[in-house]
């Protein structure tokens, strides 16, 4: 187990390096002087020069990168002149709503999609299968922010059942918290649910075509147990991978959805910063989300290693 985990962690290093360099370069590919842009057209040359000094922009590029990398590793993501806050602090206060939204959406997606995919696979070729997969195809074709807008039109504007935007802290009441989060979560979840359902179906179909399923049938195992005992455990691994990856997609989808529903999360933070050209915040948010993404993939990989007995055996050396 250690060797496998070790290998995975080592593979991370080049990825993290590229991520770091890319985020770092964001400020520097701007045509023009980043400090001048950040301060806007009304800034005096002195103010710009002062900002350049504070931000260390006069140093050679590689020195800036090392500086920046060092600070990041210590948790210091910089300081925003617009928010008058450390970036880490700003991210900390905005992370909660985004995570809540993503988790809620993930739960919804998995609860609907996995059983749907398995059912579609069991009844392959029938009307059930085709209708489920038809809905899934639609789900993949509707971007989440669009679905969010449509949901607002129907459930808030037309029917008035749910609020059209805003966020309530769970500490102030679970009911309100859920009410405000339902529409955005559904909008977010739809595309991922479609992907998870399609993956569940194809993974199940793959497994159902295996020889050991034929063996189970030849032993007299019931259709129900063949699917839920023999097939599902084997199909679970690819499904898990997709579920894990979908969390990352949910977090990034949240970025746009938060704009639709006025949720004060990371998405709003980054988007407001775009308009203000607040590069430091943008860097911080992009880096944070990218890191979360990478971390999720790592966890899924490691879980794979734990759950698949074949990989376990490789490590213990028994063949």
């Amino acid at each position, binding site marked *: 187990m250690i060797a496998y985990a070790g290998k995975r962690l080592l593979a991370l290093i080049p990825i993290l390096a590229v991520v770091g360099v*890319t985020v770092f370069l964001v400020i520097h590919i701007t045509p023009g002087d980043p400090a001048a842009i950040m301060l806007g057209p009304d800034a005096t040359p002195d103010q710009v020069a002062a900002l350049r000094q504070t931000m260390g922009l006069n140093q050679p590029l590689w020195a800036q990168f090392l500086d920046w990398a060092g600070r990041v590793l210590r948790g210091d993501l910089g300081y925003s002149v617009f928010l008058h806050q450390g970036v880490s602090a700003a991210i900390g206060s905005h992370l909660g709503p985004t995570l809540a939204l993503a988790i809620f959406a993930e739960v919804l997606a998995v609860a609907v999609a996995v059983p749907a995919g398995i059912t579609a696979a069991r009844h392959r070729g029938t009307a059930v299968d085709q209708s489920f997969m038809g809905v899934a195809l639609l789900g993949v074709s509707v971007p989440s*922010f669009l679905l969010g807008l449509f949901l607002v039109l129907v459930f808030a504007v037309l029917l008035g059942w749910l609020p059209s935007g805003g966020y309530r802290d769970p500490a102030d009441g679970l009911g309100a918290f859920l009410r405000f989060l339902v529409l955005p979560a559904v909008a977010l979840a739809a595309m991922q649910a479609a992907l998870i359902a399609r993956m569940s179906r194809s993974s199940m179909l793959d497994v159902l075509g295996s020889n050991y399923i034929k063996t189970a049938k030849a032993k007299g195992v019931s259709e129900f147990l063949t699917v839920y005992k023999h097939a599902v455990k084997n199909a679970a691994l690819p499904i898990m991978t997709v579920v894990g990856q979908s969390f990352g997609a949910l977090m990034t989808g949240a970025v746009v959805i938060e704009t639709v529903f006025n949720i004060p999360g990371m998405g709003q933070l980054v988007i407001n910063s775009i308009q203000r050209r607040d590069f430091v915040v943008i860097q911080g948010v992009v880096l944070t989300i990218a890191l979360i993404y990478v971390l999720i993939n790592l966890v899924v990989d490691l879980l794979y290693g734990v759950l698949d007995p074949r990989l376990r055996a490789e490590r213990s050396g028994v063949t």
Partner: protein
Amino acid sequence: MTSTVTKTSETPAQLIRQALRHERRNLLFRRISRNQLLVSGGVIFAFMLLAAVLVPIFLGQNPLSVDPANRLQAPGGIHILGTDTFGRDLLSRILAGGRSSLLIGCLVAVFSSVLGLVLGLYSAFYRRTGAVLMRIVDGLMAFPAILLAIAIMAALGAKTSNVIIALIVVFTPHVARVVRAAALVVKTQTYVEALNALGAGPTRILWLNVVPNLMSPLVVQATFIFADSLIVEAALSFVGAGVPAPAPSWGNILYEGKTVIYNGWWMTVFPGLAIMLTVLSINLLGDGLRDLLDPRQVVAR
């Protein structure tokens, strides 16, 4: 397959070749027409494309002309789909937006495919630089698409050309990875070894033998990139980091529509439907293409 007209000057071999070609074309046509996905996707897409290009000519409305007296009119009358917050005709804006979104999507798909092809091939055939390239690709793919696009747009500034650049950077790694994987498979096929043994040069092997085998996954991938870039561009424009106003883009219109969602539902519904239909049709096309080009035809059991 019998030919009804025999030209006396043709050799039997030529006749057989002609017959085979005819047969292959028939089979391909039959396969295409039987492939419902391909046909329905293609039809819808063709319709959208034609609409975007031809209808404005007949409508004669200017997507940019502001008319505050008529702002936020419901659909009906000369403004078939209504007007927006500035009194501009919504239908023309949607069609113009369609043209720009489709153009962006097309350019992104083409350029990222070409770049991805080159990168993928290079990294499949040159071990060491290939490994480095792949690390960079992996790193770029560690960024969610929207986020990377937002970061690049924030750095470069909101211009349509920057949107194209940003999206190319976002999608090229995906193509490169697919191409590399496919090229590695082809590389180890016996016939490539055989060609090598026969003395065929590397360029010849590469262009005449390897690349044609990569065409089908590449084309399928390009179709999906087209669809994805439509979505990402719309999202970018929706959050204000994409095509800058007043140039119309479906995302732009949705952005303006959101502020008046209680009073002007048409500004949300129509561009939304346009996006949905276009993306759906491209996805259908892509699925259909994949079925068509996949040599493993499965027999119903």
